[in-house]
């Protein structure tokens, strides 16, 4: 018997019947809901070529991926996400007539030291990709689907924060920041590091108007009415159209009775090379990380050879389960029985 035969590697877990049952229930609820909403399920291979993820548009640091080789010595990876393979398929297997296209997936992804997975290296993602439409209506639709999935799974309290990366990019342009400075500003704003941001801004020459806005960005979170604070500021086309996109998204969500679940955060600025518009994250009590994340990423499918706008999200199913365990007597079982 080998030395490690009774153990399992770091970052993976065995799901015994009770936990496994609960997880399957959640996955069924999500699958049933999305199918009823006319999303089509898709499955991509667990093993992909490393090259698929090795691009700026895909933004996956190589040290986070499980890598190995095939018979010809080519580098393979265990898929660290689904969005990139779905983009690969969209560019190579779909025809014009197939768009707009609503897809969903549920399956396991693999990453070293994934903080958001709660230190899990293998975790299940359930997500949606809405391809072929570049407008606020599509953006609002995917946010709504995220809300419905969390509600149907029985999560009693959660909040979805929505931001827009083009707003920040527009401000960086106006401030004349170099790539390096913009990256520094981005990291400080994303962490709401007010002291650090003040220090950075004081070192640079810029329009007083833009300076004020930049210092304010991390505070621009809360009710969508905060956007009104910007109405008297001089913003460039990029930032203005970002705000207009956000306003429309909130309007549509409000028309659908979903305002109570959503909130604004213009200071949410991660993965700028990946996202090209709306960006959103879902939070709930009991978990220190977002339980879902998503946004618009119009450049990804194009990197595989065919331009196509896209927006979507993915839910961390393991985290959702952990969050649900903290609420005794959640609705999960009754939802299933109702079906």
């Amino acid at each position: 018997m080998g030395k490690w035969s009774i153990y399992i590697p770091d970052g993976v877990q065995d799901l015994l019947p009770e936990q496994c049952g609960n997880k399957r229930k959640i996955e069924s609820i999500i699958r049933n809901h999305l199918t009823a909403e006319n999303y089509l399920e898709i499955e991509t291979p667990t093993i992909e070529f490393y090259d698929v993820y090795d691009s700026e548009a895909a933004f996956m640091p190589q040290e986070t991926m499980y890598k190995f080789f095939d018979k010809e010595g080519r580098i393979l990876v265990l898929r660290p996400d689904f969005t990139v393979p779905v983009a690969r398929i969209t560019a190579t297997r779909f025809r014009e007539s197939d768009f707009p296209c609503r897809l969903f997936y549920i399956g396991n992804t693999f990453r070293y030291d994934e903080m958001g997975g709660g230190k899990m290296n293998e975790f299940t993602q359930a997500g949606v990709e809405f391809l072929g439409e570049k407008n606020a209506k599509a953006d609002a639709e995917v946010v709504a689907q995220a809300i419905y999935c969390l509600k149907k799974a029985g999560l009693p309290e959660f909040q979805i924060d929505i931001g827009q990366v083009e707003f920040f990019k527009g401000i960086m342009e106006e401030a004349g920041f170099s790539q390096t400075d913009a990256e520094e500003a981005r990291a400080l704003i994303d962490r709401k590091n007010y002291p650090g941001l003040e220090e950075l801004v004081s070192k640079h020459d810029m329009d007083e108007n833009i300076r004020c806005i930049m210092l304010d960005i991390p505070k621009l979170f809360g009710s969508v009415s905060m956007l009104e604070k910007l109405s008297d500021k001089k913003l460039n086309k990029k930032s203005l159209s970002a705000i207009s996109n956000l306003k429309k998204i909130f309007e549509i969500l409000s028309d659908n009775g979903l305002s109570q679940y959503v909130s604004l955060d213009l200071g949410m600025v991660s993965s700028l090379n990946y996202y090209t518009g709306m960006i959103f994250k879902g939070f709930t009590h009991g978990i220190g990380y977002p339980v879902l994340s998503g946004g618009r990423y119009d450049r990804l499918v194009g990197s595989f050879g065919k331009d196509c706008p896209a927006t979507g999200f993915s839910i961390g199913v393991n985290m959702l389960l952990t969050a649900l365990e903290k609420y005794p007597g959640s609705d999960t079982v009754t939802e299933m029985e109702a079906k």
Partner: protein
Amino acid sequence: MRYLTVALAKGRLAELSLDLFSGIGYDVEEMRIGSRKLIFFDELRKIKYFLAKPADVPTYVDYGAADIGIVGRDTILEEGRYFYEVLDLGFGNCRMVLAGPEEYAGKMDSVAISRVATKYPGIAREYFHRKRRESVEIIPLSGSVELAPLVGLSEVIVDIVESGRTLKENGLVVLDVIADISARLIVNRVSMKMENERITEIVEGFKGMLKSKSQAECGKSDNQ
């Protein structure tokens, strides 16, 4: 109403952190009486406080086990965890520096470093990688880092410096300043959104106190 949880760093920052809370009218007196209890409750405001090793405060906040934490920026930079760093509390001031023997002073551009001893391997690595663009061997130590160059373990050290006396007494000098360090208020990113009102009350309260404190100090120096 949910308990708001506050993680405080044991040691020199603890008293001053408690002063901030009592300064805004929060009752923390129970924590000042040396006791073995690990967690303290303010039932009136529904707040839980606990003291942890400084290096662990970012961990509690990162995981959401604490909503707010007070800890030095040296620990924040070293731990590299994800949370919001919202306020510079203006105490616990010191500097993170590169230090070494006097002979190295002024010659840093021409000298080649091969070994650096430090309590802060993450910070040291980042400094050598980004600023000096050098590949060096980082030797992690737990304390009394000034010993390293004196006994030939390393050429230089990365350490925090307050008055500079310890360095001077050991024949070492500051060769470069890496960062200014002070106590910071950090907030878990989910808590910031979901407990926004209560957290903002604390942040704004602290801000007000810091402002009036610095105004008082300016007033003092004007009168001198």
